[in-house]
């Protein structure tokens, strides 16, 4: 196992270098550079523009810039943003990542849980009205034009019903005069959820061997209890209402991105589950006289889970940059919006930094998925 992980790690490093090289070539091939933005300002003379190019290292040949970039990347230095000059790219990524993480991890978890559960039920209730209707709903949501859907949801919930905010991640009227920054709240919110998730996973492991009814009571009760506990703890702090404000602003973007993305998981789970249900071991389980829910949940669903789980792990890093549309529609200043603006304004270091960050996470996720396979599927043994 150790050997396998080591070998995969080396492979990932090589892939990373290739990824960085392709990334550099593609972004560097864009016509012009950041100083083009100043072509339209008569007060920025050619001399000043040249000075800026020197300052930003754009006067050097591409091959030198490439090796400089690679060297700096290895040292964790992603350079300086042109549009936020002279602010380090890493600084900007660390500022934006928590906001995207909060939004899209929530979305990923909800859409995964929903997709997994409904996909399982759809396969189990094959050829029923339930399956047909959910398939239609799923396909519609999966193929819907997200910007239009997002704007319609804003119009409905934000303007017509006036229930939810129409954009941003906070309400300035609540945050005026507040000493603490939103990112601090985001960090603590992520920490709270991480601790709760850790406890819940422990709870799940502890209740593995208990009977079904007790297990369901403890797990459901534990989940609700943890949520109540988090709400209680936050409400006792001076900044609980700020966290509440962020959560309120998250509802609409999470709802939209969940509705758009859960269908993919649901349809994948349905298909793999249908395949699994045709397997001999499922028939054997039924023949043994096991109850329907045991056959469904323990024998069929667990085996169908593998590709769905892989899909989840691989998609999490891309959620960091893939939320461009959602973040743009909801004025949510996370990684996606940052990447879009960086590319539009030819802020090459920021664009490369953002994509590199996502690239590293994606490769790490592949490694995690490979290793997790061994635990999830006892038939897999790495050599």
């Amino acid at each position, binding site marked *: 196992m150790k050997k396998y992980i080591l070998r995969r790690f080396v492979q990932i490093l090589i892939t990373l270098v290739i990824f960085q090289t392709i990334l550099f070539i593609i972004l560097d091939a864009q016509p012009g550079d950041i100083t083009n933005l100043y072509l339209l300002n*008569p007060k920025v*003379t050619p001399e000043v523009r040249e000075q800026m190019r020197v300052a930003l290292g754009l006067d050097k040949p591409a091959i030198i810039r490439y090796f400089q970039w690679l060297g700096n990347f290895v040292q964790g230095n992603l350079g300086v943003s042109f549009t936020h000059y002279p602010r380090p790219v890493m600084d900007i990524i660390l500022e934006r990542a928590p906001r995207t993480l909060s939004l899209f991890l929530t979305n990923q978890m909800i859409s995964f849980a929903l997709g997994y559960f409904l996909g399982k039920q759809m396969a189990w209730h094959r050829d029923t009205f339930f399956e047909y209707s959910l398939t239609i709903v799923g396909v519609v949501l999966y193929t819907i034009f997200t910007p239009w859907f997002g704007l319609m949801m804003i119009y409905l919930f934000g303007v017509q019903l006036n229930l939810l905010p129409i954009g941003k991640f906070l309400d300035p009227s609540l945050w005026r005069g507040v000493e603490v920054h939103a990112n601090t709240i985001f960090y603590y919110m992520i920490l709270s959820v991480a601790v709760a998730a850790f406890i819940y996973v422990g709870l799940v492991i502890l209740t593995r061997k208990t009977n079904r009814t007790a297990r369901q009571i403890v797990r459901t009760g534990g989940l609700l209890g943890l949520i109540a506990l988090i709400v209680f703890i936050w409400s006792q702090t001076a900044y609980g209402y700020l966290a509440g404000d962020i959560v309120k602003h998250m509802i609409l973007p999470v709802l939209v991105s969940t509705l758009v993305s859960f269908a993919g998981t649901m349809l994948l789970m349905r298909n793999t589950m249908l395949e699994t249900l045709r397997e001999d071991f499922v028939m054997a389980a039924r023949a043994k006289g096991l109850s329907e829910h045991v056959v469904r949940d323990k024998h069929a669903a667990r085996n169908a889970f593998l590709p769905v789980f892989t899909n989840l792990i691989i998609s999490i890093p891309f959620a960091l940059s893939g939320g461009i549309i959602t973040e743009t529609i909801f004025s949510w200043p996370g990684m996606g919006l940052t990447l879009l603006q960086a590319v539009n304004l030819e802020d090459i270091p920021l664009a490369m930094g953002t994509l590199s960050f996502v690239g590293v996470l994606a490769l790490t996720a592949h490694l995690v998925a490979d290793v997790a396979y061994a635990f999830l599927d006892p038939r897999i043994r790495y050599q």
Partner: protein
Amino acid sequence: MNKKTLLAVLSILLVGSFLLSACQNAATPAPTEEDMVEETEPPVVDETEMASEEAPAESDAAKDLDVYRIAMLADMTSSNVWNLFGPGASTYNYVVQALYWPTLYGLSDQRFDLIPFLASDFSSPFEEEGEFFVTTIGLKEGFTWSDGSEVTADDLAFTAQVVKDFQLGGNWDYWLAGVDHIEAVDSKTAKIYYTSKPGLADHEYGVLQNSIVQKAFWEPKLADAYLVIEAAADMDPESDDYIAAVTEAQTVLYGIPADGEPIAGPFMYDQWEVGAFVENAQNNDYFFKGTMVELFDDGTYHEYKEGEWEFTAYGESSGDVILSFENGPFAKAIVYSIYNQDAAVLALLNGEVDYIYNPNGYGPGLRAQLDGNSEVQVVENARNGWRFMAYNFRNAPLDDIAARQAIACMINKDFLTQSVLQGAAIPVNTPVPVGQPFWYNPDVPILCDGMSEQERMEWSINLLKEAGYTWDTEPTWNEDRGGSVDWGVGLKMPNGEYVPELTLLAPSAGYDPLRATAGVMIEQWAQSIGFPVNAQLTNFNNILNETLGGGGNWDMAISGWSLTQFPDHMCDFFLVEYGADFAFGAYENDELSQLCSEFKSTTDLEYAKEVGYQMQDILATELPYVYLFANPVQDAFNLANVEYPYLTVLGGLENLYGMQINVYSAE
């Protein structure tokens, strides 16, 4: 742990959690918007008192606005003043911060007359002192920084010296305009030493309108940056090492945090939640707060503070007052929230913001939404700028005035703007927009003005024939189908060669549908008289690269400029000796060059106007650019919450960053 125990523990945990949540202290609720408004409402005033001599003060209170909420489409990126007016220049940085720092002079409301701000009066005429041209400027007494200290000539001298030492460009003019140094004669008198006599562009519309920073705050912060500069002192200024050292010093300078910097403008920094909002608080000690401003129809500008001071310029106050208002600020705070354009419009419709700072304009859909709300008003104003088509003088036959005029004549701007673009743009015919009445020449010739399509075609063909052009098949007017041009084929230049295919670059429809449509129409019009024009709708960056960037693969290009109040763009956009890369069309004209020399160097405003009139004549005839149209500035604001002392102004509220100083409560 057995199952029962585990179940019991978790059940207790669950119940406990719910109980704790239910019993939480409700005495410390989160502040709501209503709470905050209530707390900041002005105290109730007895009506009997309102009729007494306190009336003016009450009138001020009535104008007070708790918070002016501006939606903007991007965040600010820097709060370092040196960076802000250099590489960090961006419209969103300026919306929030441009008013922080004092300037010697500024431009008046609505008419944009040059008027003293920090200066007590106009600068003295230039005198020669040794090798320098020197002017003396007095500063106002009582003009203070937000920390209570006076703004002094030392601050001015220090700012200019830093700009010069670090060779700062961009919107800093002290170095590039040829200031050798500024001397603080005393705390309220400064002498500016130029190496050569500056013109209006460099002096009045350059150095005198540059920002001034507080020496006491910045001097100790610049030590590290100065170490880099000092290390380069012995290097050859032309060497790469020297340039590298200067750029390194600039980087250090731009990275210095400016937390707590004293300002002297109407608003000061209060809070910045990156990506969400910025807040400015009112500077209660702003010098001009409460100043009365009057504009007269004879051109007089008059401002005064009752019993304290008075200033009059550009006339004798003999005509009627056409604009009168009291200077603010009235808003206690300004909150700049960041939205995308669609969300900003919804926020305005919902009453969440009072004004949208939106340089992108509104498409028909958004405009319809705004117009459909009775609490929202959209005002349109002329834009200080235009869309144009440039000719590349390097390529025949565009170096020939006959070819340029023939194509220009075929462009029916009224038809283009009214029928094709459905009134989304206003036709433009002159280098200086009509909205700049001081500089605009009303007698500038307009080619083929008012002609029908047939008359345009005939005029263009006659012009080309006279210049020696011939066709294999000459274009003719066909009366069938309501009348149209039967296209000419095989247009030959006077030297007998066929006119080569001409590439017309225009922005793609995704970037700007108006210019893309104009490009397609111009292609058709030019082709109808035989010019083989091929319109390429392309990425705007490609157009920049081919034109200003020096790529050179173009014959005609459609682009646009925003203009400055001082119209020296009539030189910079056309003549290489003034505009360098900006004069990308390679146009040359000795007469214009001579006029530009006078225009740039004169310090006499009336003489500059006279020269400017002649320059407009030349440019409208020679046509290095064909001026096409301007799309009006559209400003949307919430009528129920805010009012402005005036709404008609060149460039609209957008050009004034939402008129933050003078906006007041609609209640």
